[in-house]
């Protein structure tokens, strides 16, 4: 099993959700996050005083998936979240040693 964690532009969230649902993924966790990468921040003015927005809002999505579909999911996320402009985000893939569905006690691929 793989844990796929993607940081994407918030306005792309709906498209990405649709794209992974089309592959048959049944669950996804979303968090509103802030951070910076190469895009860095920008400055704004409030009442004439400058302030730096160091951390830009992003959406973080997390999906636990079976190894068989992991590549397909990564590709779907990358294709839908891409605008070609700086700040599109990143996708991280990691191993999961175990997964348990709390209600039924199912484990492994059955649980994701």
């Amino acid at each position, binding site marked *: 099993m793989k844990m796929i964690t993607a940081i994407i532009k918030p306005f792309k969230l709906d498209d990405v959700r649709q794209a992974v649902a089309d592959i048959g993924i049944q669950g996804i966790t979303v968090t509103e996050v802030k951070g910076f990468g190469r895009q860095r921040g920008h400055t*704004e*003015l*409030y*009442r*004439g*005083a*400058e*302030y730096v927005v160091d951390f830009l809002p992003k959406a973080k999505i997390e999906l636990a998936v079976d190894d068989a579909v992991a590549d397909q999911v990564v590709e779907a996320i990358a294709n839908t979240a891409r605008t070609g402009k700086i700040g599109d985000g990143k996708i991280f893939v990691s191993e999961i040693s175990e997964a348990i569905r709390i209600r039924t006690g199912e484990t492994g691929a059955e649980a994701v």
Partner: protein
Amino acid sequence: MDDLTTVAGQVTELAYALDTFYFLVCGALVMWMAAGFTMLEAGLVRAKNTAEILTKNVGLYAIACIMYMLVGYSIMYPGDFEGGVFQSLANIGVLGSDDNDAAAAIAGDAYYSNLSDFFFQVVFVATAMSIVSGAVAERMKLWSFFAFAVVLTGFIYPVQGFWKWGGGFLNEMGFLDFAGSGVVHLCGAAAALAGVLLLGARKGKYGSKGQINAIPGCNLPLAALGTLILWLGWFGFNGGSELKVSDVGEANAVALVFVNTNMAAAGGLVFALLLSRFWFGKADLTMALNGALAGLVAITAEPLTPTPLVATMIGAIGGLLVVGSIVALDKLKIDDPVGAISVHGVVGIWGLLAVSFTNNGGNFWGQLGTQVIGMITIFAWVFIASFIVWYLLKKTVGIRVSEEEEYEGVDISECGLEAYPEFTSAE
């Protein structure tokens, strides 16, 4: 013939009732300005200081009412009480006064209830004190602020109020201040400035290398609502200060005051918004809000003699001044989170001076000189008296919360609660 006399008496009594009613409704509108200040300030501070600024605003309003009843009113209007100030102090303020009877109304000795006058005046004191709370927001100790409120509303404000509206020397020398650009707004701003100078800036507002950091407010919908409530309340503030509505001349005057008050706010808002757009590159809502209030403060000293177009221009200049003043005070490292000193102080001064253009009895420079003397008198008295009180508070109980409390937010340290609690459980 007797019938005619009776009818004439009834008409006079009706006029008395109408003027009293008008006074009370205007007073209620001014009371509602407390809601405006409360919302404006709650919107322009950070979320962690919201509950405390709300407590401060409702608390200062109630304190102002009680102190003005006990001592303030009798200091400000000693002529209304037999035997002057000290006699009335013995009677505990307005509690010892009688109201008018029908005979006095018919004889023309009085045209509104004495207590309606008290009610109208008491909400003005609260307005002056509200101005202070925004400027010292996010870092002052709650109870030190309340202690200052007792002195300002019971003593400092009434003394200068007596000099003008109570028939004192500023009134006798021809100083004009219709509804209080000076007596109310400059007064509040001078007290606020003294407090801010002794209090210091919020932590993080000014960097070690001289940079000025913005600390954006947490809730701009509340700030906008507060401004519109103040705008509404100002019709009572200026309109009620005409003091009478019960004949054609007075009714027309009241209508003109309403129109001019509204136009000045509109002018102030538009020009503050335009200036911030051209200066900063974007339409800064908070500057537009301050601009509307600046227009209102600017017209308050004389809303009756300008034409609506001139009133718009007086307000517009107020709107331009307030934006410049907010930026300038920041450069001087005078930290005023809501812009109260700029709106009420700098523009209050402009309002007092602007009187000379439209109401000068044919002597512009003479009136301007009188206005300057009045302005300096009010500022000097309130600033020095307030500075002494703030200083004594600072040396005894302290006026500033600790650095850690400031970081955590004064909601927790002063009130023990949060405006927007999260992760609480009933256990």
